[in-house]
């Protein structure tokens, strides 16, 4: 394992080669310990002087964590996989276009080569792009820690802005997406004033499964940037089930989305704007997901 100090910010840098080493390093290190994945949040915050960790544990040298695998239980995306690899994985893209698009929206080409969806999740920003898509997809987080492995619903990872439910010594090893069902489709849309290099003012993701007749049998609707954490809006999903996405169903869903919003007024947008556009984006995402699921 390599250890060295940087000159300006005295921080211990560890680069374990295996998962076990990484968990050990996280558990045994004293002070403020941070996992380093792509670093596009962590390093930016350190350089800005907002965060001064004592130890950082780089996980990019752990080979087993840097792969996308198709398993019996669905796709597994390692915590070290840069988002650009998701975009180049045609089977993953075909199964989960919404998740891949969400991950592909993060930053720019340069950022894409580094950033990870687990970093996006664990940074715990309410506006993180990939998170609503993972919620809608019904993803699970596989967590490793000193006490072994635990697998939790993705919604249970983030507790509040900048806060996760990870305990001392724990890290997310990978994200597990469910097996893609027949006649299903997902979509993610965000509103940013710019086309890229921007942060979502509002975002919405929808994942639908249809029966042979084209009626929605399962629906998950998630929103980003409208509350302290991303929201899975059960009522909005329910509004679509049993329908063929008629205007009334869509409006009921949009209203449920608006009701669920608990945003803030800030430099990026007003409460009114965010609430209203949440309904707009959810409607558009639902239509797109429906199309992808084969709805006509």
């Amino acid at each position, binding site marked *: 394992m390599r250890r060295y100090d940087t000159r300006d910010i005295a921080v211990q840098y560890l680069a374990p080669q295996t998962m076990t080493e990484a968990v050990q390093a996280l558990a045994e290190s004293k002070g403020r310990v941070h996992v380093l994945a792509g670093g596009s949040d962590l390093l930016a915050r350190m350089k800005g002087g907002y965060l001064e960790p004592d130890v950082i544990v780089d996980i990019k040298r752990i080979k087993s964590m840097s792969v996308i695998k198709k398993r019996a239980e669905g796709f597994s995306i390692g915590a070290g996989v840069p988002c650009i690899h998701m975009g180049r994985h045609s089977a993953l893209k075909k199964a989960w276009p919404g998740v891949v698009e969400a991950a592909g929206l993060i930053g720019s080409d340069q950022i894409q080569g580094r950033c990870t969806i687990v970093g996006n999740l664990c940074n715990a920003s309410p506006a993180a792009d990939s998170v609503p898509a993972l919620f809608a997809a019904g993803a699970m987080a596989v967590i490793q820690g000193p006490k072994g492995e635990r697998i939790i619903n993705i919604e249970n990872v983030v507790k509040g802005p900048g806060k996760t439910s990870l305990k001392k010594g724990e890290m997310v090893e990978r994200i597990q997406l469910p097996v893609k069902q027949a006649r299903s489709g997902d979509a993610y849309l965000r509103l940013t004033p710019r086309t890229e290099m*921007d942060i979502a003012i509002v975002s919405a993701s929808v994942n639908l499964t249809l029966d042979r007749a084209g009626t929605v049998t399962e629906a998950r609707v998630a929103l980003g940037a409208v509350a302290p954490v991303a929201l899975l809006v059960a009522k909005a999903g329910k509004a679509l089930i049993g329908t063929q996405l008629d205007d009334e169903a869509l409006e009921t869903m949009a209203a449920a989305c608006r009701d669920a919003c608990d945003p803030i007024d800030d430099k990026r947008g007003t409460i009114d704007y965010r609430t209203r556009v949440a309904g707009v984006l959810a409607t558009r995402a639902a239509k797109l997901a429906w199309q992808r699921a084969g709805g006509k």
Partner: protein
Amino acid sequence: MGNDTKYKARTFRAVGTRPVRPDGIDKVTGRARYGADFSMPGQLVGRVLRSDVPHATIKKIETAKAEALPGVKAVITAKDLPDYTDGDEELYAVLDNCMARKKVLYDGHAVAAVAAVDEKTARAALKLIEVEYKIHKHVTDVDEAFKPSAPVIRKDCFTTGVKPRPKKASNVSACSEFGHGNIKKGFKEADVIIERQFKTGQTHQGYIEPHACVGSISPDGSGDLWVCTQGHFVYRQMCSQLLGMDQSRLRVTSSEIGGGFGGKTHIWIEPVALALSRKANQPVKVVMSREEVFRASGPTSATSIDVKMGVTKDGRITAGEATLRYASGPYPGSWAQLGAMTAFACYDMPNVKTTGYEVLVNRPKTTAYRAPSAPMAAFAVESVIDELAKEISMDAVDLRIKNSAQEGTQSSYGPVYGPIGIGATLEAAREHPHMKAPLGENQGRGMACGFWFNFGGQSCTSLNIAEDGSVTLTVGTIDVGGARASLSLVVAEELGVEYEQVKTVIGDTGTLGFNEMTDGSRGTFASSMSAIVSVRQAIVQLKSRAAQIWDIPVDAVEWKDGHAVATGRGAKNRQPLSVADIAASAAKTGGPLAGHAQIVADGAGVSFATHICDVEVDPDTGRSTILRYTVLQDAGKAVHPTYVEGQFQGGAAQGIGWALNEEYIYGKDGRLQNPGFLDYRIPVCSDLPMIDTQILEIPNPNHPYGVRGVGETSIVPPLAAIANAVSNATGVRMTQVPMSPPRVLEALDEHLAMSRRRKRA
């Protein structure tokens, strides 16, 4: 020839071609040296402590703990920059802005600085400085600050330009008026009158390279400053005055520049670096962070503008009136004055009146931003003109053509125009295929015109010919937008040599006489005029050397196509001599060959542009996408057309950012909320369409080649062109920029609610 710099029609050989830029490879490979790339042995890191309150009196600054920290070599406050300004109020404002003396006046105002052995120590030292403030009420909004009830930022601020002089202090530092005719009469003659109020957000120039410098003052009192600047001579002048040095004791060397747009015409950290160096007796490098750049350097004015215009049914504008309130930061400025001068400058106005108010606010000191103050005034006026056109059912371009200023028109700010290009850009716009392209649902087209004065001023250049005949032109006006390429072309043209034979460099302040800054679009205009005079001086020498070599009288030698040519009886058997031929024997004919020029480049020639823009507005989110954009502008003569097009496109791109998303956002606490590129949204490449350009060439009679400045005018029309396009796409008149998605959606809602109410009534 000689010093006669009037325009003469000619055919060009080098000028007007598009050679590869001389600074390109070094810039794209990272070899070019920018402000922060300069380093000295023993150099310290300087950092500035900035106020986190918008308005307060400094009761006490305790620096002892910071000074005691190992690795800290100097801590300075305003005490270490004694006041040498000698009653010069403008310079005092600069000094006070560099380091707050009694009061902090905005979030980000410098209060102290440290020099330490490394970054980490410097940061730690800043945290050890304790500042005790007595907090005052603050005001950041221009309209709020204008009100008599607003907290008064400066007790000594009594509005100038109004009679009688007010007895009560206010935040209005000055009032200025322009115009002619009788507006009352003019409005009486109008069939349609439109009156509107507009607001524009405060924008930053957004240069990618932050302010950076290394200052070094030796114990003998002489100093060096390496710095990223738009004007090293002006930096020398101001820094030496503020430090109490003779100007010649301070040598300023400029770096490459990663954008300035006006923000680097002003000093911020440079006197601080020098004062730190003086105290620490070591060189000190200061580099601003992006956050510091936003909080404490350069923004343009936020504005609030009222416009009233009248027109007859057949499209004759009869009167125009504008009241312009421009925020200048906490120090007096003359930004509203520029707005008041430019507002109606595109048109032949029989009756016109503009009034500008300079308004103090607790925000950073306003600095020039590309055609400073003109874009906001154009936004207001050009929006109203579009509405007038609609009201009288006339095409917006035709209405403008009908009223455009021409040679001989008295401008709205006073002078009578010479030959100008507003009419020509409008005619070209009318004929442009963009005007006829089809539009889809939720799409709209807008157009607008813009004006800028341009400037020339003092310039000094040296031309030196090496023994091999290659040529170096040394200029003292910074190359911000590609002047080196253009000047090499001009020298090649005038001397009659190849472009590749000429290298243009920027000299430091020790090598040339005073040069103005690269502002007012003067770089290529003024430097090329001076360069041409330099070449002509050199040609005089070249001819006399040829005469010596041939042993014939000088007046039997002519200069043709880069060669000395013998004429008359002497011509026989005498092959023309090239620059290289003559240079080879310079040692024997009188020494080095050179041409030196010092001039005041008068007659910059005003500049006009017309822009056309297509936009699509998402009616459910209020988000706008620019679909197509065309710039038509008069360049006088485009020396290097690619650079000219780059200037056209750059101004449009910045204008698009300003129109759609860029703005300073202040919290209730008076602190800047978005000091970074994430939330201060300049456009990225994918936000912009390919910006089309059309260069018109209406020669400037006051430049040997007809050149006009081109750098600034292109930012003047975009706010209005885009606002007109958005208004045409949505049917709702937008009166506030930026037209961010929430703001547009709100306007659409209001409009909808209003038309519903109307229907019910």
